[in-house]
């Protein structure tokens, strides 16, 4: 609401999404697991940020906490200036697996949020077709998920996340299961979409290269208990070129932070 007041308001707000000293402890049969400790993040409106870190450092938990799906054990989360106490509104989610409903066609899968929210299907049908065109799914509207490649399925799940035109997009390793070529292609498409429909994107990934390619800002996490060890602003011009020495230097810097010897 507060962000669409006028031209000067459209500038990046200091923190559209904010995590203050967030900690998360899971209590399991094996005892307690400290997943996150003292996580602080500030994400501006329309920023594209990535979270990179080793497996099990709580990256996914951060997304769930932002979405209001999981409560932090301590600390606070603010989204659009409001404290998160329940599931937040107007958000799109994309997971590592496309989680499509296999008995529904591509179009019907994309329209699922509209059905659930009981919005006018007529109104959103055109939007669905625009998204289908934008993501190169034209001609596949009536196909079923099992007739599509992994990359195509993930495109469908991105369309589904965008159909309600959310201003926040939470993506949990969305391209992690795809082959390198498809991944590269979808990276480009995602940036095009993001530049075309400004959104605040929080993108979780294992791939430092991908994070540098996509993001305005990268949060580098430590192993469990996960905490932000460094916040890196990426100010390379877009479209970014992966062979650019500056690009490579940044990737290497982050890999070093993660304790990985250079091999990208």
């Amino acid at each position, binding site marked *: 609401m507060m962000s669409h007041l006028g031209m000067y308001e459209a500038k990046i707000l200091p923190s559209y999404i904010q995590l203050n000293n967030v900690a998360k402890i899971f209590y399991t049969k094996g005892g307690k697991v400290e997943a996150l400790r003292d996580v602080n993040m500030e994400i501006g409106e329309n920023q594209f940020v990535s979270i990179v870190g080793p497996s099990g450092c709580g990256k996914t938990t951060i997304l769930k906490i932002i979405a209001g799906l999981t409560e932090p054990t301590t600390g606070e989360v603010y989204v659009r200036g409001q404290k998160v106490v329940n599931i937040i509104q107007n958000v799109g989610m994309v997971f590592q697996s496309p989680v499509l409903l296999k*008995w529904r066609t591509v179009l019907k899968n994309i329209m699922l949020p509209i059905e*659930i*929210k009981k919005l006018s299907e007529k109104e959103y049908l055109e939007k669905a077709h625009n998204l289908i065109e934008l993501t190169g799914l034209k001609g596949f509207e009536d196909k079923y998920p099992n007739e599509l490649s992994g990359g195509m399925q993930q495109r469908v799940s991105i369309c589904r996340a965008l159909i309600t035109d959310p201003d926040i997009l939470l993506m949990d390793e969305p391209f992690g299961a795809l082959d390198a070529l498809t991944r590269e292609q979808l990276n480009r498409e995602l940036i095009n979409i993001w530049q075309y429909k400004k959104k605040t994107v929080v993108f979780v990934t294992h791939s430092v290269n991908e994070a540098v390619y996509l993001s305005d800002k990268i949060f580098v996490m430590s192993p469990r208990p996960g905490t932000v060890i460094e916040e890196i602003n990426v100010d390379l011009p877009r479209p970014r070129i992966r062979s650019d020495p500056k690009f490579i230097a940044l990737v290497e810097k982050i890999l070093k932070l993660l304790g990985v010897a250079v091999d990208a």
Partner: protein
Amino acid sequence: MPEKKILSRIKYLLVTHSLSIITFMAIFLIWEVLVQTLNINRVVLPAPSEIVSVMLNLQKGFYVPWEKHISVTLFEILAGFSLASIIGIILAMLIVYSLILERILLPLIVFIEVLPKIAVAPLFLIWVGYGMEPKIGIAFLIAFFPIVVSTANGLREIEQDLLDLMKVYGATKMQVFFKVRFPNAVPHIMSGLSIGMASAVIGAIVGEFVAANEGLGFLIVNAQYQLLTAMAFASLFYIAIIGLVLYGAVVAFGNLLKRF
């Protein structure tokens, strides 16, 4: 293009089915030849030709009112199966949605399952008499377990991400059930139903074995007393046909559902 696809599909079906038809024909042919050439006593093993002639009432002076017995057994199977489907699916939903009900119901369901149904049959006769009711009851008892287990598994087997997605869109419990959980469980439910159908056939026949004066199971027991081996085989064949047709119907229904 579509015509070509349909044609190749028909060709495929013909090839696969012709193979099974040929196999059956070959078995019956060998059987027939063996019985004829080895001069096997027809009380021990009647020839397929004799069995078929009994099935079709072609034998002079020997008439079996098949329609009556078939319809009785068929009714018992279908009634037992229907009850098992409805109650089984409802029980599965209760188990999945309530931990307390799961703790109450699951041991009970497993207890019933491990009881040998044939040993329960005499009790049913005491309780509900000698009509179709005890047979329906036994068919139900045997058929409902696979339906409960498969349905419960199907309703449970759902990705956490999908549930999170539904939550993010503010889906109600009903929406989650009807848009995701239930359709997601359909393949499991269908496999439970097809096993349940096959079990219901067994249940009805078991019930008739214990005490009956009509039905295909009764005919087999009767044939045994009178050493009418051909009639026993003929009844068995009819049971097999009923079982195949009903099982096929459930599978076909499942395939039909897949399209919606």
